[in-house]
């Protein structure tokens, strides 16, 4: 069991007071994200990759694409698996070894946003029905935890998938064989954007920084698709949201998501 950082009381007060005044400790408006920088093609050996910087948070994501055995009940679809890792270099509290609950939640929230938006048309990732399909593995490595890993990992995953080029396989004697020299674009149907909001007192902040993250009473991650429809939700923290707050969070997620989406879509053109 490692140590867990405690935010000192004065900083906690400063964060709460500045949020209540409508201008956050780092000068942002309540519904303002930190600066988002998306680079693609950062891992040459991966089929797709991205490095995302969201303020001080930094995530590198790689996509590997391999033939895979389909799940017994979904032989007509490819597989998608999303993982996350927070190595000790990312944060003083991060420990090597089996993933903590927080890391498992991170991977699942990112996975769910992509899966439930149906970003990838899985029916186009079949090599031979019930025998062999294409598996897409998205691995998120957190380089620096500056708060709000949910969104940073989600953006990095989405950008990496958008930028990836899929190898092509054909069936030969009941086993998939790589077709040399052929690559295709991934079957993208929509671009999911996750927006994480936190409640501090009665105020909702978008994209909490690390200090704000340590002060959150509750948090909510909402993923919307290109049409502005909500396709995934995750609520965390010990306290809750009022119905009015939930509605306003939903609207914020849609409007902020629409501002972020073009930056991720640029990854597709770059890739």
């Amino acid at each position: 069991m490692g140590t867990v950082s405690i935010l000192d009381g004065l900083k906690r007060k400063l964060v709460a007071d500045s949020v209540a005044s409508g201008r956050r400790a780092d000068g942002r408006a309540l519904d303002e994200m930190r600066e988002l920088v998306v680079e693609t093609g950062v891992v040459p050996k991966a089929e797709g990759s991205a490095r995302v910087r969201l303020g001080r948070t930094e995530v590198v994501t790689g996509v590997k694409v391999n033939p895979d055995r389909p799940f017994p009940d979904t032989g007509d679809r490819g597989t998608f698996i999303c993982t996350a890792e927070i190595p000790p270099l990312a944060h003083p509290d991060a420990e090597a070894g089996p993933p903590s609950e927080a890391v498992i939640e991170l991977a699942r929230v990112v996975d769910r946003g992509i899966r439930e938006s149906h970003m990838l048309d899985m029916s186009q990732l079949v090599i031979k029905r019930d025998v062999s399909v294409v598996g897409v593995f998205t691995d998120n490595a957190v380089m620096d935890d500056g708060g709000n890993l949910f969104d940073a990992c989600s953006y990095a995953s989405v950008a990496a998938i958008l930028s990836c080029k899929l190898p092509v396989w054909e069936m030969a004697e009941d086993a998939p064989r790589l077709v040399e020299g052929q690559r295709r674009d991934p079957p993208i149907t929509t671009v999911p954007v996750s927006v994480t909001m936190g409640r501090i007192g009665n105020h909702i902040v978008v994209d909490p920084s690390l200090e704000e993250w340590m002060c959150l009473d509750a948090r909510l991650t909402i993923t919307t698709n290109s049409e502005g429809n909500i396709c995934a939700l995750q609520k965390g923290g010990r306290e809750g949201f009022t119905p009015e707050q939930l509605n306003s969070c939903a609207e914020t997620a849609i409007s902020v998501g629409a501002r972020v989406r073009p930056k991720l879509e640029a990854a597709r053109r770059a890739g």
Partner: protein
Amino acid sequence: MPRTVMPGDTITREARRAGDNVLLDGDTLVSTAVGIVNVSDDTVSVIPLSGKYMPRADDLVVGMVISHTSQAWELDINAPYVGFLLATDVFGRDFASHADELTSKLALGDLVAARVANFDRTRDPLITIDDRDLGKIDSGELVKMAPGKVSSLIGRQGSMIQAIETATDAAVTIGQNGWAAVSCESADGLLRAKRAIGVIDQWAYSPGLMDRVKSALGHGGG
């Protein structure tokens, strides 16, 4: 110009006592840290440029409550050891562990200005707030710096800290452990005071420190 040494560097072969971060190897005094050589009387010590705070009795420190038992609070004092602040120190001699709730006086994350009552490396340092001007810090902001550079922040006879306080109207409580609580009525003053402390942390023991601090104190904004 102060002399900088690395671990393993020979400091002197003169017959002197080995102080903090110095080893006597045969007839040679050798540094065990990256730091500045300091000779006082017959003792040679090295002031480390980074690292944790080594508690010393009577030092003023700024600590943060990280836990508590039924009898005492545990304070993070930026040391390899946890500081213990006894409940009787705060509640008085009538303290009863079954009746008095420690968190009613000091909660997790609270900052205190305190003094190291005693410490001998065989037990965790005992901390007290039973003195004038000691106790919970209610306002301001915590600023951290290397413990070895605290003397530069204070300056000769307090000249440096006086210059900062006068220029910014801020009140600075400096702990020997490298943690300082800075409070100021104006946000601009707070910003300038924090910037000045940052400059000292970066440039302590360099020539022209006072000029750098003055320019950091000079104007607000950027």
